[in-house]
Protein backbone atom coordinates (compact mmCIF):
# COMPACT_ATOMS: atom_id res chain seq x y z
CA UNK A 1 0.00 0.00 0.00
CA UNK A 2 1.67 3.21 -1.10
CA UNK A 3 2.16 5.74 1.65
CA UNK A 4 1.42 9.39 0.99
CA UNK A 5 4.96 10.30 1.97
CA UNK A 6 8.19 10.55 -0.01
CA UNK A 7 11.41 9.21 1.48
CA UNK A 8 14.67 11.14 1.40
CA UNK A 9 17.69 9.13 2.55
CA UNK A 10 20.45 11.38 3.88
CA UNK A 11 20.17 14.76 5.60
CA UNK A 12 23.18 16.43 4.03
CA UNK A 13 23.03 19.34 1.59
CA UNK A 14 21.47 17.30 -1.24
CA UNK A 15 18.89 15.51 0.89
CA UNK A 16 17.79 18.59 2.79
CA UNK A 17 17.45 20.78 -0.29
CA UNK A 18 15.54 17.98 -2.05
CA UNK A 19 13.20 17.56 0.92
CA UNK A 20 12.53 21.30 1.07
CA UNK A 21 11.86 21.44 -2.68
CA UNK A 22 9.41 18.52 -2.48
CA UNK A 23 7.68 20.13 0.50
CA UNK A 24 7.37 23.46 -1.29
CA UNK A 25 5.48 21.60 -4.03
CA UNK A 26 3.02 20.31 -1.42
CA UNK A 27 4.56 16.86 -0.90
CA UNK A 28 4.94 15.17 2.49
CA UNK A 29 8.51 14.04 3.13
CA UNK A 30 10.31 11.77 5.60
CA UNK A 31 14.04 12.38 5.86
CA UNK A 32 16.20 9.73 7.54
CA UNK A 33 19.86 10.02 8.45
CA UNK A 34 21.96 7.49 10.30
CA UNK A 35 24.07 10.06 12.12
CA UNK A 36 22.81 11.73 15.30
CA UNK A 37 22.25 15.13 13.62
CA UNK A 38 21.35 16.64 10.29
CA UNK A 39 23.87 18.37 8.04
CA UNK A 40 25.75 15.42 6.60
CA UNK A 41 29.53 15.19 6.92
CA UNK A 42 30.17 18.63 5.43
CA UNK A 43 27.76 20.52 7.68
CA UNK A 44 28.26 18.33 10.79
CA UNK A 45 27.43 20.38 13.86
CA UNK A 46 29.26 20.89 17.10
CA UNK A 47 27.41 18.74 19.63
CA UNK A 48 29.16 19.94 22.78
CA UNK A 49 26.96 22.99 23.27
CA UNK A 50 29.85 25.25 22.23
CA UNK A 51 28.32 28.00 20.10
CA UNK A 52 31.49 29.28 18.43
CA UNK A 53 30.98 29.25 14.65
CA UNK A 54 32.55 26.38 12.76
CA UNK A 55 33.57 26.22 9.14
CA UNK A 56 30.77 26.87 6.61
CA UNK A 57 28.47 28.13 9.40
CA UNK A 58 26.69 30.64 7.17
CA UNK A 59 25.99 28.09 4.42
CA UNK A 60 24.68 25.62 6.95
CA UNK A 61 22.37 28.21 8.52
CA UNK A 62 20.92 29.10 5.10
CA UNK A 63 20.25 25.45 4.28
CA UNK A 64 18.66 24.70 7.67
CA UNK A 65 16.43 27.79 7.31
CA UNK A 66 15.13 26.54 3.96
CA UNK A 67 14.18 23.25 5.67
CA UNK A 68 12.71 24.94 8.76
CA UNK A 69 10.40 27.00 6.53
CA UNK A 70 8.76 23.72 5.42
CA UNK A 71 8.67 21.96 8.78
CA UNK A 72 4.94 21.20 8.50
CA UNK A 73 5.58 18.86 5.60
CA UNK A 74 9.00 17.43 6.57
CA UNK A 75 9.60 14.82 9.28
CA UNK A 76 13.27 14.31 10.09
CA UNK A 77 14.52 11.16 11.82
CA UNK A 78 18.20 11.09 12.87
CA UNK A 79 20.06 8.05 14.24
CA UNK A 80 17.82 6.20 11.80
CA UNK A 81 19.04 3.98 8.98
CA UNK A 82 17.62 3.13 5.60
CA UNK A 83 18.14 -0.61 5.23
CA UNK A 84 16.85 -0.96 1.69
CA UNK A 85 13.88 -1.48 -0.58
CA UNK A 86 12.60 -5.05 -0.73
CA UNK A 87 11.13 -6.75 -3.80
CA UNK A 88 7.68 -5.35 -2.99
CA UNK A 89 9.05 -1.83 -2.85
CA UNK A 90 8.85 -1.53 0.93
CA UNK A 91 11.44 0.66 2.57
CA UNK A 92 12.81 -0.66 5.87
CA UNK A 93 13.85 2.05 8.29
CA UNK A 94 15.60 1.03 11.51
CA UNK A 95 16.82 2.81 14.61
CA UNK A 96 14.93 5.48 16.52
CA UNK A 97 11.29 5.03 15.47
CA UNK A 98 12.05 2.45 12.80
CA UNK A 99 9.29 1.20 10.51
CA UNK A 100 8.45 -0.44 7.20
CA UNK A 101 6.47 1.46 4.58
CA UNK A 102 6.04 1.89 0.86
CA UNK A 103 7.10 5.43 -0.05
CA UNK A 104 5.61 7.36 -2.94
CA UNK A 105 9.11 8.08 -4.23
CA UNK A 106 12.67 7.89 -2.93
CA UNK A 107 15.54 10.36 -3.18
CA UNK A 108 18.89 8.79 -2.36
CA UNK A 109 21.23 11.45 -1.01
CA UNK A 110 23.75 9.30 0.82
CA UNK A 111 26.73 11.43 -0.15
CA UNK A 112 30.16 10.14 -0.96
CA UNK A 113 32.38 7.29 0.04
CA UNK A 114 36.01 7.96 0.77
CA UNK A 115 38.50 6.05 -1.27
CA UNK A 116 41.54 4.86 0.64
CA UNK A 117 44.14 2.82 -1.18
CA UNK A 118 45.22 -0.32 0.63
CA UNK A 119 48.77 -0.51 1.92
CA UNK A 120 50.45 -2.58 4.64
CA UNK A 121 49.28 -1.34 8.04
CA UNK A 122 46.17 0.52 6.86
CA UNK A 123 44.09 -1.61 9.24
CA UNK A 124 45.95 -0.52 12.41
CA UNK A 125 44.10 1.39 15.14
CA UNK A 126 44.86 5.09 14.74
CA UNK A 127 44.78 4.88 10.94
CA UNK A 128 41.49 6.37 9.77
CA UNK A 129 39.78 7.97 6.84
CA UNK A 130 39.85 11.73 6.58
CA UNK A 131 36.13 11.78 7.23
CA UNK A 132 36.68 10.37 10.72
CA UNK A 133 39.11 13.18 11.63
CA UNK A 134 36.94 15.85 10.06
CA UNK A 135 33.68 14.72 11.67
CA UNK A 136 35.51 14.41 15.02
CA UNK A 137 36.81 17.94 14.69
CA UNK A 138 33.44 19.38 13.73
CA UNK A 139 31.25 17.53 16.21
CA UNK A 140 33.58 17.72 19.23
CA UNK A 141 34.61 21.30 18.42
CA UNK A 142 38.24 20.43 19.00
CA UNK A 143 40.87 18.48 17.15
CA UNK A 144 41.75 14.88 17.89
CA UNK A 145 44.72 14.70 20.28
CA UNK A 146 48.27 13.61 19.49
CA UNK A 147 50.52 14.00 16.44
CA UNK A 148 48.44 13.80 13.27
CA UNK A 149 49.65 13.21 9.71
CA UNK A 150 47.35 13.36 6.71
CA UNK A 151 48.21 11.57 3.53
CA UNK A 152 46.84 10.70 0.12
CA UNK A 153 45.70 13.15 -2.49
CA UNK A 154 43.09 15.75 -3.33
CA UNK A 155 42.10 19.24 -2.19
CA UNK A 156 40.64 17.88 1.06
CA UNK A 157 44.17 17.26 2.37
CA UNK A 158 44.71 21.00 2.57
CA UNK A 159 41.20 21.80 3.80
CA UNK A 160 41.47 19.32 6.67
CA UNK A 161 45.06 20.36 7.41
CA UNK A 162 44.01 24.00 7.74
CA UNK A 163 40.94 23.14 9.82
CA UNK A 164 43.07 21.11 12.25
CA UNK A 165 45.60 23.96 12.42
CA UNK A 166 42.93 26.56 13.15
CA UNK A 167 41.46 24.29 15.83
CA UNK A 168 44.83 24.13 17.59
CA UNK A 169 46.46 20.86 16.51
CA UNK A 170 48.34 21.47 13.28
CA UNK A 171 49.25 18.27 11.45
CA UNK A 172 52.86 17.10 11.70
CA UNK A 173 52.90 16.67 7.94
CA UNK A 174 50.71 16.67 4.84
CA UNK A 175 51.92 13.92 2.52
CA UNK A 176 50.46 14.51 -0.93
CA UNK A 177 50.97 11.78 -3.52
CA UNK A 178 50.28 14.31 -6.29
CA UNK A 179 52.16 17.44 -7.41
CA UNK A 180 49.40 20.07 -7.24
CA UNK A 181 51.84 23.00 -7.72
CA UNK A 182 52.81 21.70 -11.13
CA UNK A 183 49.47 22.75 -12.65
CA UNK A 184 49.38 26.56 -12.24
CA UNK A 185 47.43 27.15 -15.43
CA UNK A 186 44.69 24.68 -14.55
CA UNK A 187 44.59 26.11 -11.02
CA UNK A 188 44.02 29.62 -12.35
CA UNK A 189 41.00 28.40 -14.28
CA UNK A 190 39.19 27.55 -11.05
CA UNK A 191 36.41 29.97 -10.05
CA UNK A 192 37.35 32.79 -7.68
CA UNK A 193 35.46 31.56 -4.58
CA UNK A 194 37.28 28.21 -4.80
CA UNK A 195 40.67 29.91 -5.26
CA UNK A 196 39.90 32.16 -2.30
CA UNK A 197 38.98 29.18 -0.10
CA UNK A 198 42.15 27.35 -1.22
CA UNK A 199 44.33 30.42 -0.59
CA UNK A 200 42.88 30.71 2.92
CA UNK A 201 43.81 27.09 3.65
CA UNK A 202 47.33 27.49 2.25
CA UNK A 203 47.93 30.69 4.22
CA UNK A 204 46.92 28.95 7.45
CA UNK A 205 49.24 26.04 6.72
CA UNK A 206 52.20 28.20 5.72
CA UNK A 207 51.83 30.46 8.77
CA UNK A 208 51.80 27.43 11.05
CA UNK A 209 54.86 26.07 9.17
CA UNK A 210 53.11 22.77 8.46
CA UNK A 211 55.41 20.52 6.48
CA UNK A 212 53.80 19.91 3.08
CA UNK A 213 55.46 17.11 1.13
CA UNK A 214 54.12 16.77 -2.39
CA UNK A 215 54.89 13.75 -4.53
CA UNK A 216 55.21 11.73 -1.34
CA UNK A 217 53.45 8.43 -0.69
CA UNK A 218 52.90 6.56 2.54
CA UNK A 219 54.05 3.09 1.48
CA UNK A 220 53.25 1.33 4.74
CA UNK A 221 52.41 1.89 8.37
CA UNK A 222 53.89 0.07 11.35
CA UNK A 223 52.98 0.12 15.00
CA UNK A 224 55.49 0.27 17.82
CA UNK A 225 56.11 2.00 21.17
CA UNK A 226 52.57 3.33 21.17
CA UNK A 227 53.06 5.27 17.94
CA UNK A 228 52.60 4.78 14.22
CA UNK A 229 55.64 4.81 11.91
CA UNK A 230 54.86 5.90 8.38
CA UNK A 231 57.31 4.68 5.75
CA UNK A 232 57.23 7.31 3.02
CA UNK A 233 58.71 7.57 -0.44
CA UNK A 234 59.45 10.82 -2.24
CA UNK A 235 60.87 9.97 -5.68
CA UNK A 236 63.12 7.26 -4.29
CA UNK A 237 64.00 9.04 -1.04
CA UNK A 238 62.68 7.03 1.88
CA UNK A 239 61.82 8.58 5.21
CA UNK A 240 60.00 7.52 8.35
CA UNK A 241 57.52 9.82 10.08
CA UNK A 242 56.33 9.11 13.64
CA UNK A 243 52.73 10.05 14.49
CA UNK A 244 49.86 9.04 16.75
CA UNK A 245 47.13 9.27 14.13
CA UNK A 246 47.13 9.00 10.37
CA UNK A 247 44.27 10.26 8.20
CA UNK A 248 44.19 8.69 4.74
CA UNK A 249 42.28 9.97 1.72
CA UNK A 250 42.61 9.00 -1.93
CA UNK A 251 39.55 10.72 -3.32
CA UNK A 252 35.79 10.36 -3.17
CA UNK A 253 33.32 8.13 -4.95
CA UNK A 254 29.54 8.01 -5.13
CA UNK A 255 28.02 6.24 -2.13
CA UNK A 256 25.43 4.52 -4.28
CA UNK A 257 26.44 1.03 -3.23
CA UNK A 258 24.00 -1.74 -4.02
CA UNK A 259 21.06 0.61 -4.46
CA UNK A 260 17.95 -1.00 -5.92
CA UNK A 261 16.46 0.11 -9.19
CA UNK A 262 12.81 -0.20 -8.32
CA UNK A 263 10.52 0.20 -11.29
CA UNK A 264 7.23 0.66 -9.38
CA UNK A 265 7.95 4.17 -8.08
CA UNK A 266 10.57 6.83 -8.77
CA UNK A 267 14.00 6.40 -7.17
CA UNK A 268 16.37 9.27 -7.92
CA UNK A 269 19.95 9.89 -6.69
CA UNK A 270 21.00 13.40 -5.72
CA UNK A 271 24.21 15.21 -4.78
CA UNK A 272 27.47 13.34 -4.26
CA UNK A 273 25.50 10.09 -4.30
CA UNK A 274 24.84 10.78 -8.03
CA UNK A 275 28.09 12.55 -8.95
CA UNK A 276 30.77 13.77 -6.55
CA UNK A 277 30.73 17.51 -7.21
CA UNK A 278 30.80 18.90 -3.68
CA UNK A 279 28.45 20.77 -1.41
CA UNK A 280 27.39 23.68 -3.64
CA UNK A 281 26.44 21.34 -6.45
CA UNK A 282 24.71 19.03 -3.97
CA UNK A 283 22.29 21.78 -2.93
CA UNK A 284 21.44 22.51 -6.56
CA UNK A 285 21.23 18.81 -7.38
CA UNK A 286 18.79 18.21 -4.52
CA UNK A 287 16.45 20.69 -6.19
CA UNK A 288 16.97 18.99 -9.54
CA UNK A 289 16.19 15.56 -8.05
CA UNK A 290 13.02 16.89 -6.43
CA UNK A 291 11.90 18.33 -9.78
CA UNK A 292 12.59 14.98 -11.42
CA UNK A 293 10.50 13.17 -8.78
CA UNK A 294 7.63 15.66 -9.14
CA UNK A 295 7.74 15.23 -12.89
CA UNK A 296 7.65 11.44 -12.60
CA UNK A 297 4.76 11.64 -10.11
CA UNK A 298 2.90 13.90 -12.50
CA UNK A 299 2.82 16.64 -9.87
CA UNK A 300 3.48 20.21 -10.86
CA UNK A 301 6.79 21.68 -9.81
CA UNK A 302 7.02 25.38 -8.96
CA UNK A 303 7.97 26.99 -12.27
CA UNK A 304 11.53 27.92 -11.57
CA UNK A 305 14.38 27.09 -13.92
CA UNK A 306 16.99 24.83 -12.38
CA UNK A 307 20.55 26.08 -11.94
CA UNK A 308 23.13 24.41 -14.15
CA UNK A 309 25.86 22.15 -12.78
CA UNK A 310 28.23 22.89 -15.68
CA UNK A 311 30.59 24.99 -13.56
CA UNK A 312 30.66 22.42 -10.76
CA UNK A 313 31.47 19.69 -13.27
CA UNK A 314 34.22 21.82 -14.81
CA UNK A 315 35.73 22.51 -11.36
CA UNK A 316 35.73 18.81 -10.58
CA UNK A 317 37.54 17.95 -13.83
CA UNK A 318 40.17 20.65 -13.10
CA UNK A 319 40.68 19.38 -9.54
CA UNK A 320 41.09 15.84 -10.85
CA UNK A 321 43.83 17.11 -13.16
CA UNK A 322 45.59 19.15 -10.46
CA UNK A 323 45.57 16.33 -7.93
CA UNK A 324 45.95 13.43 -10.35
CA UNK A 325 48.61 10.79 -9.67
CA UNK A 326 49.28 7.21 -10.67
CA UNK A 327 48.92 5.58 -7.24
CA UNK A 328 46.24 3.18 -8.43
CA UNK A 329 48.67 1.78 -11.02
CA UNK A 330 50.96 0.71 -8.20
CA UNK A 331 48.38 -1.58 -6.58
CA UNK A 332 49.94 -4.57 -8.33
CA UNK A 333 53.30 -3.78 -6.71
CA UNK A 334 51.94 -3.97 -3.17
CA UNK A 335 53.41 -6.73 -0.99
CA UNK A 336 51.41 -9.94 -1.52
CA UNK A 337 50.25 -10.04 2.11
CA UNK A 338 48.62 -6.57 1.89
CA UNK A 339 45.04 -6.75 3.06
CA UNK A 340 42.56 -5.61 0.41
CA UNK A 341 39.35 -6.62 2.19
CA UNK A 342 39.51 -5.34 5.75
CA UNK A 343 36.38 -7.20 6.90
CA UNK A 344 37.25 -10.70 5.73
CA UNK A 345 41.03 -10.32 5.86
CA UNK A 346 41.51 -11.08 2.16
CA UNK A 347 44.90 -10.19 0.71
CA UNK A 348 46.37 -9.33 -2.66
CA UNK A 349 47.84 -12.86 -2.69
CA UNK A 350 44.32 -14.29 -2.16
CA UNK A 351 43.07 -12.32 -5.15
CA UNK A 352 45.99 -13.31 -7.36
CA UNK A 353 45.55 -16.98 -6.37
CA UNK A 354 42.06 -17.04 -7.93
CA UNK A 355 42.06 -18.83 -11.28
CA UNK A 356 41.22 -16.71 -14.32
CA UNK A 357 37.81 -18.40 -14.53
CA UNK A 358 37.01 -16.97 -11.08
CA UNK A 359 37.51 -13.39 -12.22
CA UNK A 360 33.80 -12.81 -12.65
CA UNK A 361 31.72 -10.63 -10.30
CA UNK A 362 29.96 -13.69 -8.88
CA UNK A 363 33.09 -15.79 -8.32
CA UNK A 364 35.03 -12.85 -6.87
CA UNK A 365 32.33 -12.80 -4.21
CA UNK A 366 31.77 -16.53 -3.78
CA UNK A 367 35.32 -17.86 -4.00
CA UNK A 368 37.27 -14.67 -3.41
CA UNK A 369 34.99 -13.46 -0.58
CA UNK A 370 35.60 -9.88 -1.76
CA UNK A 371 32.68 -7.59 -1.02
CA UNK A 372 31.12 -10.15 1.32
CA UNK A 373 32.11 -8.65 4.67
CA UNK A 374 30.33 -6.23 6.95
CA UNK A 375 31.15 -3.13 4.85
CA UNK A 376 29.79 -4.97 1.79
CA UNK A 377 32.81 -4.05 -0.30
CA UNK A 378 32.60 -0.29 0.13
CA UNK A 379 36.32 -0.17 0.99
CA UNK A 380 37.81 -2.93 -1.18
CA UNK A 381 35.85 -3.41 -4.39
CA UNK A 382 37.26 -0.33 -6.15
CA UNK A 383 40.76 -1.81 -5.80
CA UNK A 384 39.74 -5.42 -6.41
CA UNK A 385 38.03 -4.26 -9.61
CA UNK A 386 41.14 -2.39 -10.77
CA UNK A 387 43.27 -5.47 -10.12
CA UNK A 388 41.14 -7.77 -12.29
CA UNK A 389 42.44 -8.50 -15.77
CA UNK A 390 39.59 -6.59 -17.39
CA UNK A 391 39.52 -3.73 -14.82
CA UNK A 392 35.82 -4.36 -14.32
CA UNK A 393 33.31 -1.89 -12.91
CA UNK A 394 33.22 -2.26 -9.09
CA UNK A 395 29.44 -1.81 -9.19
CA UNK A 396 29.19 -5.10 -11.09
CA UNK A 397 30.98 -7.00 -8.31
CA UNK A 398 28.79 -5.36 -5.68
CA UNK A 399 25.48 -5.92 -7.44
CA UNK A 400 22.20 -4.93 -5.79
CA UNK A 401 21.96 -5.45 -2.07
CA UNK A 402 19.36 -5.91 0.62
CA UNK A 403 20.10 -4.99 3.36
CA UNK A 404 22.32 -2.08 2.36
CA UNK A 405 23.97 -2.27 5.77
CA UNK A 406 24.13 -4.90 8.50
CA UNK A 407 20.88 -5.01 10.46
CA UNK A 408 20.00 -7.04 13.53
CA UNK A 409 16.94 -9.27 13.66
CA UNK A 410 15.79 -7.25 16.69
CA UNK A 411 15.87 -4.06 14.61
CA UNK A 412 13.75 -5.69 11.91
CA UNK A 413 11.27 -6.95 14.51
CA UNK A 414 11.13 -3.53 16.18
CA UNK A 415 10.25 -1.81 12.91
CA UNK A 416 6.46 -1.34 12.89
CA UNK A 417 4.94 -2.63 9.66
CA UNK A 418 3.00 0.19 8.07
CA UNK A 419 3.25 -1.21 4.57
CA UNK A 420 -0.18 -2.84 4.67
CA UNK A 421 1.39 -6.08 3.45
CA UNK A 422 1.14 -7.82 6.80
CA UNK A 423 -2.62 -8.19 6.34
CA UNK A 424 -2.12 -9.55 2.84
CA UNK A 425 0.27 -12.21 4.09
CA UNK A 426 -2.15 -13.27 6.82
CA UNK A 427 -5.05 -13.38 4.40
CA UNK A 428 -3.19 -15.46 1.86
CA UNK A 429 -2.08 -17.85 4.62
CA UNK A 430 -5.66 -18.57 5.61
Amino acid at each position, binding site marked *: MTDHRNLVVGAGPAGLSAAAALARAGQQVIVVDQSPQIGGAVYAQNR*TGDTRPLSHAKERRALFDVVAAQRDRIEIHC*STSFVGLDYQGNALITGVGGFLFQPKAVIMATGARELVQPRPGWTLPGVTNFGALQVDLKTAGRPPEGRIAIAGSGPLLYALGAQLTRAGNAPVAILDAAHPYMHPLTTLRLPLPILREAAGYMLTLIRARVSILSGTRVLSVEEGNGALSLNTNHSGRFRTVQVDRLGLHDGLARNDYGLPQNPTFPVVAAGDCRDVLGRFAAIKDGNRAAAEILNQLGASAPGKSLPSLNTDEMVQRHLERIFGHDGHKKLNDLPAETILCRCENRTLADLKALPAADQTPRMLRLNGRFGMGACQG*RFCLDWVAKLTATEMDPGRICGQRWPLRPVSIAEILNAADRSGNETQIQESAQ
Partner: protein
Amino acid sequence: MTGYIRWKDRDVPYEQGETLAQALNRAGISYFGTTHSGQSHSVFCGIGQCQNCLVILEGTGPCEACRTLCQDGLSVSPVAGAP
Protein backbone atom coordinates in the same frame (compact mmCIF):
# COMPACT_ATOMS: atom_id res chain seq x y z
CA MET B 1 32.95 16.37 31.90
CA THR B 2 29.31 15.47 31.81
CA GLY B 3 29.42 11.80 32.72
CA TYR B 4 30.95 8.38 32.42
CA ILE B 5 30.48 5.35 30.26
CA ARG B 6 31.75 1.94 31.31
CA TRP B 7 34.38 0.31 29.06
CA LYS B 8 35.18 -3.22 30.20
CA ASP B 9 36.30 -2.70 33.81
CA ARG B 10 36.92 1.05 33.75
CA ASP B 11 34.95 4.27 33.73
CA VAL B 12 35.62 6.53 30.75
CA PRO B 13 34.58 10.18 30.97
CA TYR B 14 32.68 11.81 28.15
CA GLU B 15 31.58 15.30 27.29
CA GLN B 16 28.17 16.28 26.04
CA GLY B 17 27.60 15.23 22.44
CA GLU B 18 30.54 12.84 22.19
CA THR B 19 30.19 9.48 20.49
CA LEU B 20 31.47 6.29 22.12
CA ALA B 21 34.39 6.38 19.69
CA GLN B 22 35.31 9.98 20.57
CA ALA B 23 35.24 9.32 24.32
CA LEU B 24 37.23 6.08 24.00
CA ASN B 25 39.81 7.64 21.68
CA ARG B 26 40.27 10.61 23.99
CA ALA B 27 40.87 8.21 26.87
CA GLY B 28 43.68 6.69 24.82
CA ILE B 29 41.67 3.64 23.73
CA SER B 30 41.88 3.26 19.96
CA TYR B 31 41.78 -0.54 19.87
CA PHE B 32 38.22 -1.74 20.50
CA GLY B 33 38.80 -5.50 20.15
CA THR B 34 39.52 -8.07 17.45
CA THR B 35 37.29 -8.87 14.48
CA HIS B 36 36.32 -12.45 13.64
CA SER B 37 38.99 -12.38 10.96
CA GLY B 38 41.73 -11.21 13.31
CA GLN B 39 41.87 -7.51 12.44
CA SER B 40 41.51 -4.70 14.96
CA HIS B 41 38.18 -3.12 15.69
CA SER B 42 38.91 0.61 15.64
CA VAL B 43 37.58 3.77 14.04
CA PHE B 44 38.17 3.79 10.30
CA CYS B 45 35.53 5.65 8.26
CA GLY B 46 33.99 7.52 11.21
CA ILE B 47 30.62 7.93 9.48
CA GLY B 48 28.93 4.55 9.77
CA GLN B 49 29.92 2.99 6.45
CA CYS B 50 32.67 0.49 7.34
CA GLN B 51 31.52 -1.34 10.51
CA ASN B 52 35.14 -1.37 11.69
CA CYS B 53 34.33 0.25 15.06
CA LEU B 54 31.71 -2.25 16.22
CA VAL B 55 31.42 -2.64 19.99
CA ILE B 56 28.79 -4.32 22.16
CA LEU B 57 26.37 -2.06 23.94
CA GLU B 58 25.04 -3.89 26.97
CA GLY B 59 21.36 -4.66 26.55
CA THR B 60 21.32 -3.72 22.86
CA GLY B 61 24.00 -5.67 21.03
CA PRO B 62 26.54 -4.62 18.41
CA CYS B 63 26.62 -0.94 17.50
CA GLU B 64 28.93 1.41 15.62
CA ALA B 65 30.95 3.36 18.19
CA CYS B 66 31.33 6.22 15.70
CA ARG B 67 27.64 7.07 15.54
CA THR B 68 26.38 6.12 19.00
CA LEU B 69 26.19 9.01 21.44
CA CYS B 70 27.44 8.58 25.02
CA GLN B 71 24.90 8.52 27.83
CA ASP B 72 25.39 8.04 31.54
CA GLY B 73 25.47 4.43 32.55
CA LEU B 74 26.08 2.97 29.08
CA SER B 75 28.17 -0.14 29.39
CA VAL B 76 30.35 -0.95 26.38
CA SER B 77 32.56 -3.94 25.70
CA PRO B 78 34.51 -5.51 22.83
CA VAL B 79 32.58 -7.80 20.50
CA ALA B 80 32.23 -11.38 21.74
CA GLY B 81 35.36 -13.44 21.69
CA ALA B 82 37.69 -10.48 21.36
CA PRO B 83 40.40 -10.20 24.03
